[in-house]
């Protein structure tokens, strides 16, 4: 067991770093992508609200594995057209394609989480803001957003952990995260213990993130 870990240490570390970076990036970018969608879902009854609902339903409906294949190999089929549009530099890169799939997926889930917490902010907060003569933008940015974020933190934390697990699918489009490295070492050593080492990595990573989130939650609990 130890030789499978120490003998391949640099590959395990590369995989671990890639998993951590890709999941963190996708959650953070996904959060900012989710904000306008959540606002549209929460406040707009018109076409914007409808579009936001459509976005959420589509990207929560497609399995991430299929979405990754679709974006990566699907775009490859149109490489000539994408070159013409000047977009090929983006789709050419497996990392960008993988990140795009992760962000599209998590933004749909995060939008629903943020919408849920926006909807629970009582009207008295809004009235207070109006009484203080805050503009709608200031009131959103300085008051509503921080409160919504604090309220949404536990489910957003869960989403972060789900994203750590979701990055394991990057391996199918040639991005070697923890799972990808594990599958590579497995295909060379034919040793099942490789997957137990990968499992230990994920367990430690997830428990660490949970611990960090709990501390962070405790600090901003007063706002929620």
């Amino acid at each position: 067991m130890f030789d499978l870990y120490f003998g391949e240490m640099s590959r395990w570390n590369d995989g671990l770093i890639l998993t951590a970076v890709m999941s963190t990036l996708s959650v953070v970018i996904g959060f900012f992508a989710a904000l306008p969608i959540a606002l549209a879902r929460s406040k707009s009854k018109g076409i914007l609200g409808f579009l936001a609902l459509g976005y959420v339903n589509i990207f929560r409906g497609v399995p991430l594995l299929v979405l990754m294949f679709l974006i990566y190999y699907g775009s490859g089929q149109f490489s000539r057209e994408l070159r013409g549009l000047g977009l090929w530099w983006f789709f050419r890169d497996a990392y960008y394609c993988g990140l795009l799939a992760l962000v599209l997926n998590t933004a749909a889930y995060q939008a629903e989480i943020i919408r849920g917490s926006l909807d629970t902010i009582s009207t008295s907060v809004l009235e207070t803001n109006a009484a203080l003569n805050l503009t709608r933008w200031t009131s959103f940015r300085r008051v509503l957003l921080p409160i919504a974020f604090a309220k949404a933190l536990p489910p957003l934390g869960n989403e972060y952990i789900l994203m750590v697990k979701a990055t394991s699918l990057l391996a199918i489009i040639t991005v070697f995260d923890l799972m990808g490295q594990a599958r590579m070492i497995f295909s060379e050593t034919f040793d099942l213990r490789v997957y137990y080492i990968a499992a230990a990595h994920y367990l430690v990573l997830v428990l660490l993130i949970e611990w960090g989130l709990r501390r962070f939650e405790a600090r901003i609990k007063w706002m929620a």
Partner: protein
Amino acid sequence: MTWLNSLSYGSGGWGDELLHGLGVTLGLAIATFPVAIVLSFLIHWAKVSHYTPIRLFGRAYTTVFKSLPEILTLLILYYQSQAIVSWLVEAVAPGSHLSISPFVAGMMSLAFVISAYGSEVVRAALNAVGKGQFEAAASLGLSPFNAFFKVILPQVWRHAIPGFGNLWVILLKDTSLVSVITLFELTHVATIAINTTRQPFLFFGLISVIYVVLVTLSTRAQKQVEKRVSRGFIREETGHV
């Protein structure tokens, strides 16, 4: 319009294979779901057990299956369960063999993962029903067994349906992962079709639409069931509980 040909039904196209793959996808989800629900209750009880080893097992189960990527759980179970089963069969009846099919391996691992989340749905639903119901049933002289199945369980469903509904949708999508151990479900059929047709956009696009439709239909059905089980709990005029 050559792409239409590749989707046609019959020997020239992939229509019938995709339909068969859809059947396997639904079959896997439908076969797994009841197992996952029963496991959810068992794991919940393990977590509130008075016996420390059982309680620890329940906690470890939830932590492990909630932390590991589903695909890793699937691969470990697929290879490890075969090694264990082969060893057992060899001990009981030397010379014969029992294969753990990708279907069974997929069913087991998805049931484990879904029930780790499901045990929390059960906990919340049982809390919502309240301890008082159980105590009342006990004071009426019902055995714990009867109290659970006749009094508690019928009320639990009402609170558990939204949670289990979400898990059903997750399960439906997670069946796509079993393609990695070559179960011929929807996603795997699409990858095989792409191997010969080299039309990834068409086939992955098509199965994406199929998954979205399945999920949308499931959500609709869930809303209907929720309405049905809430009858008598909701004021018709206001819609409030």
